[in-house]
């Protein structure tokens, strides 16, 4: 193993292919302590499988209160109207059009702000101060040997990448880190997979699964991150993913079956890799493949 932790991201492009189930399954199959970071800050789900054992809503609430929690905020500008002379330098420094000048007074649109800091830096009158705007929270808890971390974006908040970057920075002592990524291939996905040593792409053998897999592959090739594929919900008569992997010379790390039983175990907030005996050895094998490929 390397001198720093091995960071393995689990991503998919398409939503609902089984990222969270597989992240949990891989983390739970490890013999050592591992960290699992839930980077789907818009719809985090890892806590549903690791905080409540009995699928009991009030129990979950109690457990959630026991998490180590911290508010997360981003920097936004505040304008001191007595110092500001309305010169408009901040307006022209802002590439996101988040500042406009009405008369001699700046008007700020927080939803457009990317917290880049240019307006603070460029103001010649020191009329702009940095203030914090809360956009969500970060949480930490422990489930058996899994050290869990997640982030929750406040409802109505548009930008998730700053929170995703924050939870990835959390202090981690484990040698192995799994990162459960958000769906899609745009900025939240990039924020989640960036700096990973390896990405496990989870797909399903449907036209949607294949299409979104191709998009995710394209993004990872641009980012220069190594990856392999798990075919989830696999059945005997679907070779579309296998054919694609062969044509692109992509490693297939493993296959997991399409099964109502797995879906039902998942529906109750249980980890299929731990509940279904036949899956246990499958997950062990996949985990070995993942670590072997990621350490190459």
């Amino acid at each position: 193993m390397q001198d720093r932790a091995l960071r393995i991201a689990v991503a998919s492009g398409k939503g609902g292919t089984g990222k969270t189930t597989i992240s949990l399954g891989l983390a739970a199959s490890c013999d050592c302590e591992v960290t699992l970071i839930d980077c789907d800050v818009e719809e985090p789900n890892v806590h549903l499988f690791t905080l409540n054992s009995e699928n009991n809503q009030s129990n979950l609430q109690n457990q959630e209160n026991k998490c180590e929690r911290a508010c997360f905020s981003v920097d936004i500008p505040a304008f001191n109207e007595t110092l500001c002379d309305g010169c408009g330098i901040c307006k022209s420094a802002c590439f996101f059009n988040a500042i406009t000048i009405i008369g001699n007074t700046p008007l700020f649109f927080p939803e457009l702000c990317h917290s880049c800091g240019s307006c603070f830096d460029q103001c010649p009158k020191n009329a702009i101060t940095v203030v914090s705007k809360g956009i969500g929270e970060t949480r930490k808890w422990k489930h058996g040997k899994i050290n869990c971390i997640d982030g929750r974006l406040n409802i109505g908040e548009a930008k998730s990448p700053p929170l995703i970057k924050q939870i990835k920075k959390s202090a981690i002592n484990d040698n192995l880190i799994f990162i459960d990524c958000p769906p899609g291939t745009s900025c939240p996905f990039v924020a989640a997979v960036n700096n990973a040593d390896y990405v496990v792409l989870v797909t399903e053998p449907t036209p949607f699964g294949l299409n979104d897999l191709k998009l995710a592959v394209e993004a990872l090739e641009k980012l220069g991150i190594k990856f392999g594929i798990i075919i989830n919900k696999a059945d005997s008569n679907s070779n579309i993913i296998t054919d694609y992997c062969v044509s692109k010379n992509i490693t297939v790390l493993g296959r997991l079956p399409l099964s109502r039983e797995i879906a039902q175990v998942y529906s109750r907030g249980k980890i299929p890799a731990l509940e279904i005996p036949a899956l246990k050895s499958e997950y062990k094998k996949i985990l070995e493949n993942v670590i072997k490929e990621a350490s190459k």
Partner: protein
Amino acid sequence: MKQITIISGKGGSGKTSVTLALWQASRHALAVDCDVDASNMYLIASPINAKAPEKVFKSGFIAAIDKTKCINCGNCLSKCRFEAMSQSPNGEFPEINEILCEGCGACFLACPAKAITMSEKETGKIFVSTTRFGTLVHARLNTGDGSSGKLVSQLKQMACEIAKNEKLDYIINDGPPGIGCPTIATLTGSNAVIIVTEPTVSGLHDMKRAAELCNHFKVKYSIIINKHDLNELITKQIEEYSVAQNILLLGKIPYNLSFVSALKECKTIIEHDSSSYEAREIRTIWEKIKAL
């Protein structure tokens, strides 16, 4: 003209399959695929031809560095808050990672040698297609790019103009998963929102966050439970939630592999078997949506 928007919070709950079937059932609506970073509707609707030339979507900026002008002072490196700048391996000048660059211009403003230029960025393409179900407005965001919310807003604006010209009564928006920027852009201006959920602990949790998002933006929503027989206990919890919140439950669709089969055949669930229970349920749901 009414805008019906379908979201789910959780990915993979069946939004797109349900949207496609509702679109077919509507017989006379325009559809917009608002999941611009992983758009899927066109795969099943298989466009017959382009109705309008494809349009380049530009949004935001990207920084580039002129190595001949760079004096390697390091100002840009310290100003970038997005980890997009790094020293080149030989330490001679900074390099910009195009995917991580947010286009904020902090480096451009900080450069004393004027070695950095900002240029407008092409982030996607917009398509208007004719399909067997009607007109589909869709897009492809370049992989790894941001600004998906702006792209969604532009798609929806184009869709409104087309629907007006064609005198269509309904626009059906298929939303992205999550509750962030592209979902907010999808919700904006909708007359009715439908949350497609599934009876899993994740489905219920994510539905509630999507519901809170609708409340936050004061948009009325109703619910469809997909795969309802997967977990009758949670289905009951969703039903109780809808009663407590005074939300209309539009219908329940069973967990049926015919949805997967239909997808593999590139058909809607109605085309797959128009007399099936699922197909009838979709038609009933569409009638209820019209009555909203």
